[in-house]
């Protein structure tokens, strides 16, 4: 009886647990088949998410980067930004639709211009670390062992064969074709490894959910570390 009173959603803490379990059950019902309950929660979910975004991603940004600088600090030049950005809203008009492309062009130009820095930051350090792979044991690299050298050879070989697979502008024939096939096999090793490695993280999530149902909702005493 005590258990039942504790179990029922009679206070705010229990209500929160019940809502959480209800949400979980509704989402999991998709596994059986698409159904009205899932559909209800799906629409609620999207509605909630859309409503939530307006706070931190719309009001907050406009307030922080537009309202504050103009009305708060008096930087009047910002006034032009929002009307300019609102050219985007012409998208729904057939006659004026092209005007939105001015803003889209700005965005495309900016993302292209920003890519140079991204390319340098993201890919060149990787290229550089590929250089630091001694291929045989020399006095210049005293810490390098035979095992390291083997690993480095493997690294360069896999890198080159996979890169070969990813060339497009000529017909891959003969030796090149064989190297490219090898590259694709190495690629499959990498993909298999990522698959295997990701499973645990996903299982951990599911276990977390099931633990929540068993422990928080059904209040089963699971290994509460008595010592």
């Amino acid at each position, binding site marked *: 009886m005590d258990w039942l009173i504790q179990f029922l959603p009679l206070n705010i803490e229990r209500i929160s647990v019940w809502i959480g379990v209800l949400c979980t059950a509704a989402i999991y019902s998709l596994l059986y088949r698409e159904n009205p309950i899932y559909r209800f929660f799906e629409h609620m979910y999207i509605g909630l998410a859309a409503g939530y975004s307006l706070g931190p991603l719309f009001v907050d940004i406009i307030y922080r980067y537009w309202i504050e600088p103009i009305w708060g600090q008096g930087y009047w030049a910002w006034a032009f930004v929002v009307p300019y950005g609102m050219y985007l809203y012409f998208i729904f008009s057939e006659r004026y639709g092209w005007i939105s492309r001015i803003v889209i062009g700005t965005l495309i130009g900016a993302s292209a211009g920003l890519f140079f820095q991204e390319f340098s930051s993201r890919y060149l350090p990787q290229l550089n670390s590929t250089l630091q792979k001694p291929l045989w044991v020399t006095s210049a690299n005293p810490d390098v062992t035979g095992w390291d050298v083997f690993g480095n050879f493997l690294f360069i070989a896999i890198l080159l064969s996979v890169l070969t697979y990813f060339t497009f502008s000529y017909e891959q024939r003969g030796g090149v074709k064989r190297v490219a096939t090898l590259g694709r096999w190495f690629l499959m090793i990498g993909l298999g490894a990522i698959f295997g490695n990701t499973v*645990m*993280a996903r299982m*951990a999530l599911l276990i*977390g959910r099931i633990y929540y149902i068993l422990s928080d909702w059904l209040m089963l005493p*699971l290994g509460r*570390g008595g010592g």
Partner: protein
Amino acid sequence: MQSPTIWQRMLSIDRRLLYLLLFVNIIVFLIAPIRMPASISPPVQKFYDEIEKLKPGDLVMISSNWSASTLAENQPQLEAVLIHLMRKKARFTFISIEAQSRDISYRLAERLTKTHGYEYGKDWAHFGFVPNLIVAIKGMVNDLPATIKEDVRGTPISQLEVVKGVKSLKDYKMIIDVTPSGTVPIWISYSPKGIPILYCPTSVMAAEAYTYLDSGQITGMITGAKGAQEYEQLLKIEGLGARFANAISFSHVLIIVFILLGNFAMFMNRAQARREA
């Protein structure tokens, strides 16, 4: 049209059956108290030994940065470590890097401390979350009260008995980082020298940490649910670690078994087709 053979039926198995099996499999291994004696790995042993050195009243900073998505790995770690700290009568304060990990660690600590007679504010406290860990650590090294200002309950830090007289992070005896993300290099780089750092990563993050262990920049490490299981064995308690470790392991076993079954069915089906042809 003849009825499908058992192999054909296995190949086109209703996936809902697979889903049910996985669900039940996890429930069973979470509930069933199966114990597999684990061999204690050296980093876990070092972790244990380091906490054993603590004296009653020593202050420990726990950086807890996990949330629901890595609960199965990080929660058993934190529970086992907290139990050990409370056995040693050490005092501790929490800090997180975002709101959800703050809430989850605060709730967990509240629950566990109650059963050990620890009192909030006197024996432990939660400092809430800091948006930028680097800035926060640098600030705490200089002037801890000015950086934190108030705890998670909104109490000014000057009124918390647990950090009475604490000026800086240097007054702490130990830092423990329970995390699924790359926060430990930040603690290593910015925390005061001479304070041991103990690390509780998820399994994915553990491989990268061995260099820090080698160089002594971190003193001990508990890896995922498996590490927590070893730790529970050292503490001689029945905690969540063993259950979560089992649930993780056997969900993988289930998948592997079905991959093998699928292949077996495929071969049998082919063999049968060949025989009939």
